């Protein structure tokens, strides 16, 4: 056998040498370790010898070295069995590690399991496997890449730290999100192996935090929490993204992200409760209830940061999660971050969790106990859910009891006490004792029931169970301390019971009561003392101490009767076995018995012993638990756990909000607000971002003025508005003043645009003054003219925004009319379409959807394109948004004039990126008044609680009869075709309306090269692909008509194609920016339509619509 081992050793050394060579190629110098390795091998050898008797492992070794896969697999399965049982299988290491490169995937996985388990103990041998993993890291199969990284990073061998670092960096940029997720996990492993790598790891974390994949988000936040929880600055830019992704992240990631965001929010937002706390000095009641009122009279009302609101809004749906940890995480987030009046929405969910497993109940009840101390009202309606069942585990019962006690108030105390009565009789005596304590607490907290409780407790004194009686005595003692004089009969009663009570604590309590209130029971007390003197020696220590106390107190008040007894007891105490009692006796003797040696103290004996003592406060054990963040391990244990991150207090002043702004490429510049207006340079823009109302106000002003001469400064205003997202630092003055010296890309762009707009605007406004009539049409024309006049790069960016500027002029004309009380209704959407010269030559009545020529995106001058790309920070910068190819002018009815009492509304999709928020779909509403009276104050109700996030238009103050006005809104449909429901209000009425988006309107066109398209399509196969074959109607065969049909159905960009029979279209979803790729392959007479997108539901809906549009049935 020794020979066998020797062979093995030779083999292993040989294999190791070759591995070393490969390791060296990877710039790892292991030379110095060579000798130590050999040594290790010899050690291994000897240890193997020592364990010779273990013959079982020998045949495993043989099996592992055989040539048969099945034998090896069988052997590995047995090895894994050994590991699972905690048996040592480390001497098989050399035999096992050779199989690391096996083709059999199951065998390989089992080898991985073994490696990870023993690599730490056999570091040198483990190095043999490294090159295999490095090869696997380059494997085309993402599962293999990922598992190689997983194992590589799990091998806790310090020497491979550089290899791991390299692998992590590479994997962090892998195309597969699954591999990137693994990389995020590997970060933590490497960090725990070598904390010195922190700086490098933070770089990787920073990169991964920007990742848009929901798969990665949870894991990277976990890594962030472990490696650098203090680097809150890394979160700023990703904050909004994380909030928006949250719902789609897998459940475990949600928990981690929510906890992290809770901490983040506490450092970045000002307290939604702050004012209340400061201005309110008295009771808790007002603290919670009258918040609304107080808000009103505060001079500077609190305004919640929109990002703060975003977090609260996006976490709320997760209360419905099936995962209890997620629900709890959201609850603690609301508890720590939400305004007081909003917290109560978590109650139901918490109560629901109580139906879950015992362990879940335990944790949830603990958290409820903490909450219920501060906010009784939250849980009071659910009081009955905390009723105890006889089948509950003891710790659950006690927690429920705790909560019931916390919830007790004057109104419900009788119900609770009745319930408690049942519990007192419980067979579970520990629980019965806890109930008695709870009754005691209720009695002290609610003075109305103190007497009832006391009487009840006295009745319990005759209970046969000792623990119950003892607990009652202790509680009664505490209660009596509050008002002893009225209860001398109770004390007498207890004295009578004294003989029957054997529990030391209870006996001691009675003795203490006698002593303390001996003046109320002057006859009985000496008698009790007499009995005690008799049984002194057989009592427990605690009882003896109280006997001594009682004796001393009686000696002071009633020395005539008790002098002898006292001396007797003091003598007994003097020779007691327990030193505490001896000490106490000595002390008492010196204190009360006057003799020549006694010092000054004895004069004060009476004052010392009979001093009035404060009544004990009975309070909840959960009183101060809220110093720990709810839902954490520390909270559960009520002590700080390792790695607990303190939740900071709210900052006094709000930190800079702009740090969270993310630069988003907005190639299409336009301002949704009417662009004429007087200069408002005086306006502070500080609040610009946080305060929508103010923004609206500004827009108002703009739209109200017609001073074209100042349009230039106005221009910059609107420019900065559309750049909300990209303008991070130039908050105020720079973006406003024309002379801003900052020459950032965006500024430059803005300026060119501005200049151009000035040119454009002037004729525009002239025009307008001349003809008020069919304003829409003429304006659009004048605009397109001036547009074509300007330089090419300008016009390109302009042409991107045609319909946007249209929108501008539209709404202008609307306001114009309103002002002039023009009674001419604007014709339905003068829509424009007309952007290019050729098109504008068309007949006016040829406004039918014209497929605007595809190469539109190519108009973007290369330089501008690259500018835009430079601005983008998103990793998927390849997604270059482009302008819509086609804007349909169909409008849909929003509100019929009959139902709207004269107010009618229509909406249409502008197919432009929304200026309010990049994840919103922008819509245009036309509101007309067909009644006889003017309508006032038309607006969207702010309080409407619709699922979607809507950016409302600013209220239309007055709409004259027969007039109409056009406004634009943005709706975040969250990439679903669910209708957006909201309330359209006038001064008198409210109308519920809804907007139903077609799936094609939830997209934005994207321009990309054909090659990019094919590559992206390759990534979206399988479930992400849906396709169908249809028979094309003959008139649709031409490539132009195919494009036209497709773009009329969906807002997609056309990809120039080299193959004639394949048409490609690309777009991205508005909310989540997922790619949507459509290709139509013509095979006369059939056509295959393929839709590739991550949003498979949208994909299939889109496919269906395309089928109808292109199919035979279509015109």
């Amino acid at each position: 056998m020794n020979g066998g081992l020797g062979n093995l050793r030779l083999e292993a050394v040989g294999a190791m040498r070759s591995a070393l060579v490969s390791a060296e190629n990877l710039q790892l110098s292991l030379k110095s370790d060579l000798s130590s390795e050999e040594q290790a091998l010899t050690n291994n050898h000897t240890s193997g010898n020592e364990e010779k008797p273990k013959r079982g492992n020998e045949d495993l070794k043989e099996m592992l070295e055989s040539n048969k896969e099945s034998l090896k697999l069988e052997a590995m399965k047995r090895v894994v069995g050994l590991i699972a049982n905690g048996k040592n299988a480390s001497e098989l290491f050399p035999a096992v590690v050779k199989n690391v490169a096996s083709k059999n995937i199951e065998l390989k996985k089992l080898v991985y399991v073994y490696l990870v388990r023993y690599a730490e103990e056999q570091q040198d041998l483990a190095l043999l496997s490294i090159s295999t993993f490095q090869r696997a890291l380059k494997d085309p199969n993402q599962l293999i890449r990922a598992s190689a990284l997983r194992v590589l990073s799990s091998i806790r061998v310090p020497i491979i730290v550089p290899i791991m670092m390299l692998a992590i960096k590479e994997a962090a940029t892998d195309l597969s999100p699954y591999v990137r997720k693994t990389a995020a996990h590997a970060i933590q492993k490497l960090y725990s192996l070598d904390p010195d790598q922190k700086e490098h790891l933070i770089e990787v974390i920073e990169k991964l935090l920007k990742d848009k994949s929901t798969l990665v988000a949870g894991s990277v936040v976990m890594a962030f929490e472990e490696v650098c929880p203090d680097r809150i600055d890394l979160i700023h830019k990703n904050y909004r993204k994380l909030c928006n992704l949250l719902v789609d992240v897998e459940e475990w990631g949600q928990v981690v992200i929510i906890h992290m965001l809770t901490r983040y929010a506490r450092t970045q937002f000002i307290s939604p409760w702050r004012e209340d706390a400061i201005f309110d000095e008295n009771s808790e009641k007002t603290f919670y209830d009258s918040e609304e009122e107080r808000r009103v009279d505060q001079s500077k009302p609190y305004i919640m940061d929109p990002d703060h609101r975003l977090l609260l809004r996006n976490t709320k749906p997760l209360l419905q999660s099936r995962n209890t940890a997620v629900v709890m995480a959201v609850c603690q987030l609301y508890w720590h971050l939400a305004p007081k009046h909003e917290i109560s929405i978590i109650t139901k969910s918490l109560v629901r969790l109580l139906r879950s497993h015992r362990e879940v109940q335990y944790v949830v009840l603990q958290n409820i106990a903490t909450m219920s101390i501060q906010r009784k009202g939250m849980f009071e309606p659910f009081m009955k859910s905390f009723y105890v069942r006889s089948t509950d585990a003891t710790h659950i019962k006690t927690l429920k009891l705790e909560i019931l006690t916390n919830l007790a108030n004057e109104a419900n105390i009788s119900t609770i006490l009745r319930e408690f009565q049942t519990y007192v009789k419980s067979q579970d005596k520990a629980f019965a004792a806890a109930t008695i304590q709870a009754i005691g607490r209720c009695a002290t907290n609610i003075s109305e029931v103190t007497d009832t409780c006391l009487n009840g407790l006295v009745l319990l004194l005759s209970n046969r169970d000792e623990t119950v009686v003892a607990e009652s005595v202790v509680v009664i003692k505490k209660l009596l301390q509050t008002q002893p004089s009225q209860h001398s009969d109770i004390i007498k009663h207890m004295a009578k019971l004294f003989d029957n009570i054997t529990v030391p604590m209870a006996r001691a309590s009675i003795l203490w009561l006698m002593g303390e209130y001996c003046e109320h029971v002057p006859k009985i007390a000496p008698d009790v003392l007499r009995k005690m003197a008799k049984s002194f020696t057989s009592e427990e220590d605690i009882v003896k101490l109280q006997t001594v106390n009682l004796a001393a107190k009686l000696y002071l008040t009633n020395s005539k009767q008790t002098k002898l007894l006292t001396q007797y007891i003091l003598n007994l105490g003097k020779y007691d076995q327990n030193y505490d009692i001896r000490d106490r006796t000595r002390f008492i003797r010196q204190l009360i018995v006057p003799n020549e040696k006694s010092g000054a103290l004895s004069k004060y004996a009476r004052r010392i012993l009979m001093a009035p003592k404060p009544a004990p406060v009975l309070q909840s054990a959960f009183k101060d638990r809220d110093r720990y963040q709810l839902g954490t391990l520390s909270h559960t244990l009520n002590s700080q756990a390792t790695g607990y991150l303190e939740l900071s207090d709210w900052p006094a002043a709000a930190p800079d909000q702009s740090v969270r702004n993310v630069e988003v490429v907005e190639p299409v510049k336009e301002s949704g607000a009417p662009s004429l207006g007087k200069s408002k340079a005086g306006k502070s823009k500080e609040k610009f971002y946080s305060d929508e109302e103010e923004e609206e106000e500004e827009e108002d002003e703009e739209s109200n003025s017609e001073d074209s001469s100042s349009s230039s400064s106005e221009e910059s205003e609107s420019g900065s508005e559309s750049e909300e997202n990209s303008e991070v630092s130039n908050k105020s003055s720079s973006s406003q003043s024309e002379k801003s010296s900052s020459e950032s890309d965006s500024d430059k762009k803005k300026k060119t645009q501005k200049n151009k707009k000035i040119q454009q605007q002037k004729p525009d406004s002239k025009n307008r003054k001349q003809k008020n009539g069919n304003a829409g049409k003429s304006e659009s024309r004048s605009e397109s003219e001036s547009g074509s006049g300007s330089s090419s790069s300008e016009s390109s960016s302009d042409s991107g925004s045609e319909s946007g500027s249209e929108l501008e002029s539209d709404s202008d004309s609307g306001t114009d009319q309103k002002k002039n009380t023009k009674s001419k209704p604007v014709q339905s959407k003068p829509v424009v379409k007309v952007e290019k010269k050729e098109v504008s030559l068309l007949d006016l009545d040829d406004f039918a959807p014209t497929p605007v020529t595809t190469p539109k995106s190519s108009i973007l001058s290369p330089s501008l394109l690259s500018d835009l790309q430079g601005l983008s920070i998103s990793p998927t910068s390849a997604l270059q948004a482009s302008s819509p190819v086609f804007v349909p002018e169909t409008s849909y009815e929003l509100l019929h004039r009959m139902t709207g009492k004269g107010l009618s509304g229509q909406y249409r999709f502008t197919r432009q990126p929304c200026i309010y928020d990049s994840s919103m779909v922008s819509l245009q509403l036309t509101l007309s008044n067909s009644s006889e009276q003017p309508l006032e104050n038309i607006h969207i109700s702010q309080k409407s609680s619709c699922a979607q996030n809507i950016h409302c238009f600013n209220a239309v103050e007055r709409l004259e009869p027969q007039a109409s006005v056009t406004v634009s809104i943005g709706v975040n449909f969250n990439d679903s075709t669910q209708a957006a429901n909201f309330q359209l209000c006038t001064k008198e009425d409210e109308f519920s309306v809804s907007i139903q988006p077609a799936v094609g309107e939830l997209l934005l066109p994207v321009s990309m090269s054909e090659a990019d398209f094919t590559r992206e399509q390759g990534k979206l196969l399988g479930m992400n692909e849906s396709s169908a074959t249809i028979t094309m109607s003959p008139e649709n065969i031409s490539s132009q008509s195919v494009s036209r049909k497709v773009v009329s159905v969906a807002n997609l960009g056309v990809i120039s194609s080299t193959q004639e029979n394949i048409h490609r279209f690309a777009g991205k979803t508005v909310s989540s920016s997922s790619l949507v790729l459509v290709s139509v392959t013509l095979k006369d007479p059939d056509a295959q339509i393929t839709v590739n997108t991550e949003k498979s539901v949208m994909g299939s809906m889109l496919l269906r619509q395309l089928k109808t549009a292109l199919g035979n049935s279509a015109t």
Partner: protein
Amino acid sequence: MIHSLFLINNVGDLFLEKHWKSVISRSVCDYFFEAREKAGEPDNVPPVIRTPHHYLINIYRDKIFFVSVIQTEVPPLFVIEFLHRVAETFQDYFGECSETTIKENMVIVYELLEEMLDNGFPLATESNILKELIRPPNILRTMVNTITGSSNVGETLPTGQLSTIPWRRAGVKYTNNEAYFDVVEEIDAILDKSGTTVFAEIQGVIDACVKLSGMPDLTLSFMNPRLLDDVSFHPCVRYKRWESERVISFIPPDGNFQLMSYHISAQNLVAIPVYVKQNISFFESGSSGRLDITVSPKQTMGKVVECVVVTIHMPKVVLSASLNATQGTYKYDPLTKILVWDIGKLNPQNTQKQPNLKGSLSLQSGAPKPEENPSLNIDLKIQQLAISGLKVNRLDMYGEKYKPFKGVKYVTKAGKFQVRT
């Protein structure tokens, strides 16, 4: 996060250990054994135990303790929820989660645990994904594998892992397309001595068994969705649609899953289907007691109440019971002190002769009589009825062409239904 996992059976044998980070000696479990000792009943073991260097978070399920070792701060529910998910996965794979099955399938268990956690952080917990990575054992496959040498382990990344709907696998195909929904409601109630309801609420779940090909998009609507005031959903359900339209719209996972659970709280009136009249008394003298229980149907909406079982945990001093049941059978186990009366069906017509259990109990002589009467736990079942009145309106399918077979079943059961005496 989760550092190690130990599985311990209820007699205290540690039969499996798995470490995701460095190895922690199993001696850490001594702290757990200590707490176990102190608790007496396995149910009373505190779920979170602190030791000098670690924290032990454990769950007790199917007579197995899942003890996880934690080193740093982590939301305890995170761990608890995960451990339960592990137990559910075992159950899903092996039919039951017991010591024997786990030991028999040790390798698969190990492979599963390896996939479920990476460095202590959950990686794949969706059963559909796991099943593509590691195929569940069955006899046929084991035979095929031994012959062909193929393995149980998938070679490619399950597509679900990457998509936004990780719960569904791609390329599902069935010859019979069917979707079944079970609306199961449990009544949690506490009745007091006189039969009045102290507390009652309904916990409902909708379990689904969906075997549909392709990528179906289902919409389930109710006749009376307003009943549901608190719901929680499987991640596949589109919450927004529920909020706005009160319909449940989802792309289902393949196979069995729990679509939603709901809670109809104590504020609403809950119909109690049975009426229990009981009288249990113990006498000071003669160390005996008397028991008399009658169960009759109450608000059953015309359905038959089945599988009625009354369980009583008797006080320790009760030695034996000699009773007479007019219907069903009774059994008293003097060891566990549990009296079980299996009544069976309650006949709604025969109102005169209601099932009754009557007789005497003999107590340990000399011991004081128990002061509290034991409470009654009632179990029952009503087929074809959701006691809350919830009704499924219709199920629509989009996205696929075939016509699925659809079915809905209603069952009402007693949950934690207790009668105090």
